[in-house]
């Protein structure tokens, strides 16, 4: 095995690139060819058996698909694009992956090295443009650097706090030959992804939790990225700590876990928001106190002692000062703390969360999910779709009301079942990310919730779905508005609906043009049947549901407000 790895052969830079990807276990690439990356695509042609290439319709789609693939599969997503516009089109997805810590390697073609800096055709300063939004960016100018660069790229993308890496590959380096041998990178002297665990901090954390009367845990994506779901459950259960999850922490634990109190943040549940300001010990695990979670920092959890578990030192004290900072991989730190915890329970404290749940059910959820009259609500669609899959599907969302409603009402039984653009909030993310998710988890049902605005930002990816028969279930919650902006206009801009109303095409017809089966539902009584048809259909399906035009997502913590002052809407108050 080891001999095979170090075997030397003379091959071209582009062959070295494909061979290196194979050595890293890559079997799926999302990409789009162009002049400066043609040699790599030519080499790919010889390795079709080993690497599946998915030709998207726009480079942004390739990157979002690679993100969706990575999120559900635990693998590094790979996108292959050309120079200039190919690379700049990929920047949105790269930034998205940076914000949401998604392991991804993007390879972009570049003009031949003698033309660098001459404003050559389709030349862009990709390294300069991408450095602020990548974990690492490197330009390959010699074929002998290919194996080295790929090996580093995969190590950097997937280790520590994961993130996107871009390799900018000059065309002459693709064509020239080199001696090739591959070695996996396992360490770099300038990069320490796994911080040494400080046992004192472990003890301090355990002590605080053991003394806590009202502990509350915040579960973030770090748990999923660190494959620490089991360790988390053991930790929470031993001391019976109620928890809320961030939008990217969804599905780390099954939704129906008795300690789950719901989602944090602007459109999260009442309990997790207001109890943040009532707990005595706040335990943040693999989450970064995003402003959409904290609202006003000056009024956020001031009464609590904060314990912060994270692998990224730069997140410590960045937004919220922590009393105890437990630096390290949650898979290793959580069990160390669990060992020191006393078995405990907090029934009265749990009852407070249950009272919040009841309040929310009565004021918001019941109406959103079980209305019998009036227009179809977004929430009832999400709830019915989730139930139709026995809560076993992967939920992919776009951005806006569709995202907040899906993440509120979709239910999870398996980890890695949420694919959503949490940090960057990229409209147009849903459809291509859904394609990638299906490739990453081919045996699972993938439900993509989109709005009429976001769908049209990347609707051309219907072409990819058609070409490869990608079995994704697309649920279009159509209110003919840019719903979330409209909601803000209603609440904060005197109902002045500036540029948010959309005249839309016949989406079912558009889908039909791509050979995608579709159905539009306007009446509540048709909804169950349509969902059943969608799930039963062997192939992609567009279910367009005409939902309440002026539907609102409640509750809501207005931007910059305190999590204690959550608005319930419809005349209700806390």
């Amino acid at each position: 095995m080891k001999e095979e790895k170090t075997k030397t052969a003379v091959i071209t830079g582009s062959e070295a690139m494909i061979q290196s990807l194979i050595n890293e276990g890559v079997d799926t690439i999302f990409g789009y060819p162009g002049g400066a990356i043609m040699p790599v695509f030519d080499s790919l042609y010889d390795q079709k058996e080993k690497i599946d290439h998915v030709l998207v319709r726009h480079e942004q789609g390739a990157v979002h698909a690679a993100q969706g693939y990575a999120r559900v599969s635990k693998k590094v997503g790979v996108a292959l694009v050309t120079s200039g516009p190919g690379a700049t089109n990929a920047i949105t997805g790269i930034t998205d992956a940076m914000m949401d810590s998604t392991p991804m390697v993007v390879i972009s073609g570049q003009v031949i090295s003698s033309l660098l800096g001459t404003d050559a055709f389709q030349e862009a300063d990709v390294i300069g443009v991408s450095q602020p939004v990548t974990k690492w960016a490197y330009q390959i100018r010699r074929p002998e650097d290919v194996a080295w660069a790929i090996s580093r790229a995969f190590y950097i993308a997937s280790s520590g706090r994961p993130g996107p890496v871009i390799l900018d590959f000059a065309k002459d380096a693709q064509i020239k030959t080199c001696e090739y041998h591959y070695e996996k990178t396992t360490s770099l002297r300038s990069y320490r992804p796994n911080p040494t665990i400080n046992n004192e901090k472990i003890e301090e954390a355990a002590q605080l939790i053991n003394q806590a009367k009202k502990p509350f845990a915040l579960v973030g994506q770090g748990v999923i990225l660190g494959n620490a779901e089991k360790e988390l459950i053991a930790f929470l259960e031993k001391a019976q700590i109620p928890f809320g999850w961030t939008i990217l922490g969804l599905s780390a634990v099954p939704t129906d876990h008795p300690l789950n109190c719901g989602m944090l943040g602007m459109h999260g549940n009442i309990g997790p928001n207001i109890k943040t300001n009532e707990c005595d010990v706040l335990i943040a695990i693999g989450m970064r106190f995003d402003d959409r979670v904290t609202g006003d920092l000056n009024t956020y959890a001031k009464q609590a002692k904060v314990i912060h578990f994270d692998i990224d030192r730069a997140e410590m004290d960045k937004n919220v000062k922590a009393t105890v900072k437990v630096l390290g991989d949650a898979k290793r730190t959580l069990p160390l703390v669990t060992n020191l915890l006393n078995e405990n329970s907090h029934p009265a404290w749990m009852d407070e969360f249950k009272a919040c749940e009841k309040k929310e059910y009565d004021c918001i959820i019941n109406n959103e999910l079980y209305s019998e009259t009036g227009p179809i609500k977004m929430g009832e669609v999400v709830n019915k779709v989730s139930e139709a899959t026995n809560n076993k599907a992967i939920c992919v969302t776009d951005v806006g009301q569709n995202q907040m409603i899906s993440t509120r009402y979709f239910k999870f039984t398996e980890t890695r079942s949420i694919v959503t653009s949490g940090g960057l909030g990229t409209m147009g993310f849903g459809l291509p990310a859904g394609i990638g998710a299906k490739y990453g988890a081919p045996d699972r049902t993938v439900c993509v919730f989109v709005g009429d605005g976001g769908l049209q930002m990347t609707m051309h990816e219907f072409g990819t779905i058609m070409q490869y028969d990608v079995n994704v279930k697309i649920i279009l919650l159509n209110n003919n508005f840019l719903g979330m902006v409209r909601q803000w206009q209603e609440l904060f801009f005197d109902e002045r609906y500036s540029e948010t109303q959309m005249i839309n095409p016949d989406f079912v017809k558009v889908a039909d043009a791509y050979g995608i089966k579709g159905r539009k539902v306007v009446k509540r009584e048709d909804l169950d049947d349509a969902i059943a048809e969608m799930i039963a259909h062997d192939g992609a399906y567009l279910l367009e549901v005409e939902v309440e035009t002026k539907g609102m997502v409640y509750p809501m913590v207005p931007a910059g407000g305190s999590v204690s002052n959550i608005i319930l809407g419809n005349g209700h108050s806390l």
Partner: protein
Amino acid sequence: MQEKTFYTITVFSENTVGVLNQITTIFTRRQLNIESLSVSPSAIDGIHKFTITTFLDSEEAAIKLVKQIDKRVDVLKAYFNTDEELVYQEIALYKIETAKLVATSNIEKLVRKYNARILDVSDHSTIIQKTGHYEETQALFEELSESIGVLQFIRSGRVAITKSRVERLSDMIERRRLIDESNK
């Protein structure tokens, strides 16, 4: 306006293309102005040292800034210091019209007063060098400007060295190497 503190940020990085850009974008994103910058190879082969000075609102801001720099893959180590913790130096060069310099009677006095050196003399101009803190190089500049005039003036970025005992970079690298070997 809030009172700002002057900080010196020191960064050790791999000598790869674009590290400076990676560092400066971290400043740009926070709307921080770099007052001075000096970059040179360090004592260790393949490792470059950046010395950056900037005004910051608080030590907390300095901690956050340095953590973000330290987080970059190509950066080995970043840290910050205030002036009290450092021995630091800048170098300045002044070009003066030789005729005017000769016409004054106090060349010797000037050189002695500022501990300056004359590096080059030609018919038209003379180059004076002065090392010291900003205030010192600035004082000479002001005196020359007001008396005989300065044709050209250039001042380097700061170079600095900590007074306290800190872990030597070479020791840190060795320590990391040993950890990696024991992990293998």
